[in-house]
């Protein structure tokens, strides 16, 4: 039976483990930083000399670490895009704006093990020649902001932060910046605008790639909380050993947030791809199955923006056969390995690794109406298709769940959603369109039945 694999969560929730620096140090804290900061320049086979920071960047790339925030993009590659020749300062921002519905993993790290994040951040900043960094904490985490503020002060007092860190001559400051309740601040360019003291209107790419034109138009790295924590473990384990965790191209571990209709909702850390969706939901040491007497209806596999799966779906996935040739195999929904690539191949995504389980008691139209209300509320309003479309969809779904459904609503919603996706500055357009498109495509009969029932009741037909 697959088990949890606790790397990031190793100490979290253990009896006696607290979030103060003494406890962290007793558990081997800041050893990875001590190791990283004294790395000596190394001669490569081709005669080039590689500095310590360059070696760390190489390790992170070789580890295969993919961003844990939502996009799953290679962290090492993201770092490699940073413009290091501009002469401008390089900034690093930790994205602690955890707000994708279904996700509650960063909350655990911020509240219960803040020094793990700070250590990962200091190493990442050192590797990228960053002198000033920020932790952008969502406004609804006032406790996390206070805990981090104290943790930063304690780290500073012990020489892990500030001037001349551990006698290396390297200076770094990290400050807390608080958001104020806007989901769009989780989008990295919106986050940067917000940090500059503006409305969080995402910037258009090109030209505003953060790695080149980020905070104050300087090269900027934005990484998720969990991603930065992994950097610490990559240093401790070494890239090669780290990459043995998980599965090829889906390395390391990942914290899955499991919520909805399961017996044991919660956060579970797994080796990426070593546990299936079904095991996450039904495993005795994971979700523990559905509530008694209930059956599975749908799974939202990677945060509310990911496309929904319907119970019983089967997928054709490409796998390497015994002879090394690629073969197409049939995979049941519940047998999908929980990783980046399998979920993408199945037409959805692992996103922020938030699994929301819906059982047969769920009114699927009502569930979509709930999500659409979220997106209508959170659209920043910059792009017309998203600002207007997200509200149209929410209004139509509100009407549908309040006795006024019409037969053509399903088509109307699909048409609206398809006119939003791909026509906006940031990925919010897709985030609000995908739930609508996937819910209707996979449960069309429920949307149409509602329309028929309501029209029959009111005696009208449009």
């Amino acid at each position, binding site marked *: 039976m697959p088990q949890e694999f606790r790397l990031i969560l190793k100490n979290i929730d253990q009896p006696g483990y607290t979030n103060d620096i003494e406890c962290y140090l007793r558990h081997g804290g800041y050893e990875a930083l001590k190791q990283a900061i004294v790395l000596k320049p190394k001669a490569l086979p081709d005669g080039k000399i590689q500095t310590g920071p360059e070696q760390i960047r190489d390790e992170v790339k070789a580890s295969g670490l993919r961003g844990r925030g939502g996009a799953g993009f290679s962290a090492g590659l993201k770092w490699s895009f940073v413009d290091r020749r501009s002469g401008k300062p390089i900034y690093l921002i930790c994205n602690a704006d*955890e*707000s*994708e*519905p*279904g*996700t*509650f993993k*960063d*909350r655990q790290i911020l509240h219960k093990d803040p020094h793990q994040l700070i250590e990962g951040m200091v190493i990442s900043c050192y590797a990228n020649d960053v002198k*000033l960094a920020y932790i952008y904490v*969502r*406004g*609804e*985490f*006032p*406790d996390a902001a206070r805990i981090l503020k104290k943790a930063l002060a304690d780290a500073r007092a012990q020489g892990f932060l500030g001037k001349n860190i551990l006698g290396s001559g390297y200076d770094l*400051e990290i*400050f807390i*910046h*608080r*958001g*104020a*309740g*806007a*989901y769009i601040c989780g989008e990295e360019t919106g986050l940067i605008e*917000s*940090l*500059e*003291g*503006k*409305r*969080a209107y995402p910037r258009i790419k090109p030209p505003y790639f953060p790695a080149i034109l980020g905070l*104050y138009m300087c090269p900027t790295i934005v990484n998720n909380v969990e991603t930065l924590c992994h950097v610490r473990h990559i240093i401790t384990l070494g890239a090669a050993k780290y990459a043995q965790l998980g599965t090829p191209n889906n390395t390391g571990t990942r914290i899955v*947030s*499991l*919520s*909805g*209709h399961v017996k044991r*909702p*919660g*956060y579970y850390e797994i080796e990426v791809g070593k546990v299936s969706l079904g095991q996450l939901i039904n495993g005795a040491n994971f979700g523990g199955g559905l509530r008694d007497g209930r059956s599975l209806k749908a799974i*939202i596999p990677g945060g*509310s923006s990911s496309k929904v799966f319907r119970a019983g779906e089967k997928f054709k996935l490409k796998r390497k056969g015994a002879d090394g040739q690629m073969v197409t195999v049939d995979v049941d929904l519940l047998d999908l390995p929980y990783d980046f690539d399998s979920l993408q191949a199945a037409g959805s995504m692992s996103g922020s690794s*938030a699994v*929301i389980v*819906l059982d047969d008691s*769920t009114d699927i139209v009502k*569930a979509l109406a*709930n*999500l659409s*209300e*979220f997106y209508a*509320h*959170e659209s*920043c309003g910059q792009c017309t298709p998203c600002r207007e479309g997200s509200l149209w969809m929410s209004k139509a779904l509100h009407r549908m769940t309040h006795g006024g459904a019409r037969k053509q609503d399903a088509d109307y919603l699909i048409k609206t959603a398809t006119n939003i996706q791909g026509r906006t500055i940031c990925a919010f357009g897709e985030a609000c369109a995908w739930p609508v498109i996937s819910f209707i495509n996979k449960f069309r009969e429920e949307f149409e039945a509602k329309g028929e029932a309501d029209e029959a009741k009111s005696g009208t037909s449009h």
Partner: protein
Amino acid sequence: MSEPTEFSSASKPTANPLAHDAHFVVSAELEAEASELISHYPEKRSAVLMLLHEVQERFGYISQEAVAWIVAKLEMQPIHVLELVTFYPMFRQQPAGQFQVKICRTLSCALGGAYELHHHFCSRLGLDDQAHGIQTSKDGKFSVEFVECLASCGTAPVVMVNEDFREGVTTQQADEMMAQCRKTKG
């Protein structure tokens, strides 16, 4: 003389949505905190969200006077502060109740009974559970509002009472919470 048209200067200007606060006085402590926060950024303007938080924590909402103070402190245009207060949902433009009850309404909490919980708070406090936005009880003790995902979906439904975070809240716990709050002097 012709009648003033909709766009003429004679038409009524849009009122500033922010309330006045006759009691807005900046303490030396707040001045010091503001200076510290400003020092964290290469550009002053970046400190604006942090200053708005500091003001709201002390005064309960963002008043016209507070905006004027921030504008002077950060050398910004008033519109650039006002547009943040209207954009970021956490900032209040009017005073709220002594205890602000924020109930998460997004999917996992909704599946876990958030709407029933919201209805319970509203009916106990004489508020309309269908009304949009924040509502304050007549005695000024409580404000109730639905908010979007509070990132604790595994312990649904979740509620924040001011800065206190509560998980897996039942209607019985809600009653206890309100009783506890009522004992606290306003």
